[in-house]
């Protein structure tokens, strides 16, 4: 009876097969209590804290934060009786058969729904007294040669060299096609999928790293002593990259710039702040820029459209889902305000404030990120004058809004210090010609130059 117990990642939802370690809340050597939170794990369903199953001292942590771990694999070892002297060296995983998340008959992992992932080949229980069974119960059947490959080290604690592949490369047809498309030789790829098969991610990883690598095992966030850090491409970064590449190489971008005097806008903001109905709303320059974009889009509806190559149509939208690019700890996201054109200025202020706060807290729901039609990126918050933004996929225009600086400016024939900013508008040149893009940008600028007068004349 060992006192070092290994805790295996359970199925935290219903029928989940893996989870990503977000953060360890304990470290090796810590004394922990029963039910003390030890680790945060994110699955396809939820990010949750796992409480310790036993009290004791942490002797080993099997996976660093960022690792994606299969259900049923050990994640932490705990010495449940640390006062009893040195512990034995043969950790005995606490893996009770049939337990949810533990091994189940047939080499499967027990999960609540369905059969769960299989990690070994199925072995039939020998039938008693059947002539066809060549072996008796006393002699264990030697596993067939192929089976040696697929015993995916269920209790192997540390990632060691990948199993040597003896048979043909296992990969599903779409993965084989992907490998062909990317020029990746499957024989040189280390498969991490079931039965050592090569997955889509394996192929993409092989394509993105050096073609010449043969023996290095790609591991999450490896620091190999050189002065390079390897960060696994995943999550928001992966999504951002895919979106940017998709957009940059399908929509021909044009960017135009306009420098405008926004002194009157800044004064208008001060007046708004003083009004009681805006007492609990956040009144910022971004609010007026958003309003300017919405009003200008109403005057030039074609700007608020998307290119549908499959159907051979340009889809012009009667509603504006206004995207706001937000830098968050998890990376760039562009949540949008649904049907922003229908909101009053106060409602828009509240919506902007909520959107930014939720984004900063990392809790933006996927629905808020889908369906954007027109976007703003506020590079001014970083102290930058302007930039050439890349269109979010499916959108035809995005406005970069730069920092507002006191600048010498010709005002009524004299040089005065005025509040000045630079706008940068990128648009999809398949849909929007230079003339339309220029008119739209000019109108946005006109509003910011004199919001009161433009409001009176446009609406």
């Amino acid at each position, binding site marked *: 009876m060992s006192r070092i117990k290994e*805790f*295996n990642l*359970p*199925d*935290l*939802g*219903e029928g989940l097969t893996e989870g990503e370690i977000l953060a360890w809340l304990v470290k090796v050597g810590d004394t922990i209590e*029963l*039910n003390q939170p030890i680790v945060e794990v994110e699955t396809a*369903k*939820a*990010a*949750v*804290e*796992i*409480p310790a*199953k036993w009290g004791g001292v942490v002797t080993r942590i099997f996976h660093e934060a960022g690792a994606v771990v299969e259900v049923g694999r050990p994640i932490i070892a705990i010495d449940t009786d640390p006062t009893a002297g040195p512990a034995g060296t043969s950790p005995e995983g606490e893996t009770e058969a*049939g*337990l*949810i*998340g*533990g091994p189940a008959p047939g080499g499967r992992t027990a999960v*609540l729904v369905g059969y769960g992932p299989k990690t070994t080949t199925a072995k039939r*229980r*020998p*039938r*008693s007294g059947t002539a066809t069974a060549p072996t008796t*119960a006393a002699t264990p059947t030697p596993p067939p040669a192929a089976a040696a490959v697929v015993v995916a080290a269920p209790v192997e604690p540390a990632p060691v060299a990948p199993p040597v592949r003896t048979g043909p490369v296992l990969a599903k047809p779409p993965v084989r096609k992907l490998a062909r498309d990317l020029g990746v030789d499957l024989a040189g790829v280390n498969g991490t999928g079931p039965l050592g098969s090569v997955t889509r991610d394996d192929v993409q990883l092989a394509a993105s790293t050096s073609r010449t690598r043969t023996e290095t095992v790609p591991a999450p966030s490896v620091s190999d002593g050189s002065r390079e850090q390897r960060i696994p491409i995943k999550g928001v970064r992966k999504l951002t990259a895919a979106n940017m590449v998709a957009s940059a190489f399908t929509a021909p971008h044009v960017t135009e710039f306009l420098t405008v005097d926004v002194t009157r806008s800044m004064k208008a903001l001060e007046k708004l702040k003083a009004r009681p109905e805006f007492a609990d709303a956040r009144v910022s320059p971004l609010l007026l820029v958003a309003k300017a974009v919405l009003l200008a889009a109403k005057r030039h509806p074609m700007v608020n459209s998307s290119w549908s190559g499959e159907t051979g149509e340009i889809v012009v939208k009667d509603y504006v889902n206004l995207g706001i690019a937000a830098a968050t700890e998890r990376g760039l996201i562009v949540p949008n305000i649904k049907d922003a054109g229908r909101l009053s200025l106060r409602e828009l202020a509240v919506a902007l404030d909520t959107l930014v706060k*939720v984004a900063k*807290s990392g*809790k933006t*729901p996927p629905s808020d990120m889908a369906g954007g039609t027109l976007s703003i990126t506020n590079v001014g918050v970083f102290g930058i004058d302007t930039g050439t933004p890349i269109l979010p996929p499916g959108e035809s225009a995005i406005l970069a809004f730069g920092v507002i600086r006191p600048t010498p400016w010709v005002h009524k024939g004299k040089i005065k210090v005025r509040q000045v900013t630079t706008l940068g508008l990128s648009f999809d040149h398949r849909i929007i010609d230079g003339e339309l893009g220029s008119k739209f940008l000019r109108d946005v600028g006109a509003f910011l130059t004199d919001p009161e007068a433009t409001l009176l004349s446009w609406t």
Partner: protein
Amino acid sequence: MAKGESVAGTDIPPGGFVQLLTPDGERIDSVTTADGTTYSVDFTDEEFRELYRDLVTVRRLDSEAVALQRQGELGIWASLLGQEAAQVGSGRALRPQDMAFPTYREHGVLYCRGIDPIMPFGLFRGVDQGGWDANEFKFNQYTIVIGSQTLHATGYAMGVTMDGRTGSADGEAVIAYFGDGATSQGEVNEAFVWSGVFNSPIVFFCQNNQYAISEPLERQTRVPLYQRAGGYGFPGIRVDGNDVLATYAVTRAALDNARNGQGPTLIEAYTYRMGAHTSSDDPTRYRISSEVESWKAKDPISRLRAFLTKQKIAKKDFFAQVDEDANRKALDLRERVLAMPDPEPVALFDHVYPHGSPEVDAQRAAFTEYQASFEGSGH
């Protein structure tokens, strides 16, 4: 103290509710609603302390179940965190002869029925089918299908009437539990129609915890839920579901009306699910933290503790003892859950029919023989 239809205080939903204990632990002696009904409680000091003990115990047992799920010992768990007062208040209002029809979250009601809290764990651990004798415990099986238990309860309540067990002070009343989301189900509305038409001895107890998984209340209804009862021809009332005293008073009155032949009542216990819908859910994806924080201030346990302290009904050593007892119960529950045996494969055939059937018996025999054909099967 305050006497009136709605009570003073903050965060009271439009339309008001019956509240006898404010979030700050201030006692309100009685509340009289527009129909002239007066609600109050008359507890001894010991009874107040026992209510507190119930609330703490059911919360502690629930937290142990949540931990067990995270440790891979339960397939799923639906936490009652935040709804303790709604469950203990209504559960303690039941008389021994009354019949309860729970959802899958009524662990607190189960506890108040005097049932060993381990009973539903076989279901969530996957070692049995969650079956028990509803008549023995006066507590029906946990029902997973949303709202269907309201129809079972309706049929049962009609049976109570047909058996002549209603119409007196010691008659039998039925209580059906469900949530705000279930009110959008056809079953619940059918149950309302039937119970109203037949004037059945039933109390519909809706724990409005504001979310049907991720769907907020405003996607279920345009009127406060309790007002729906009017359309079906029986009274509806809203109670502060985080107030164990008011929940007790309102439920007790509704049950007594039912047992005396006065027909159904819909009670909307206005509360909040502090945790996830189930262990498979992540509420941070659809709720903002400030909302959760605002409900923390209305915690059912802390308000009763404040009341007991202010009234000098209980002191620190009592609270410490309650915590310790609850902790011991939770650890005992943990040990017993971990020791639950896996079922034999042939148990599959149990409980298909109460007295067996030739076909199932034959299948059982064939399966037993098949199992015995394996080496090491012990048969």
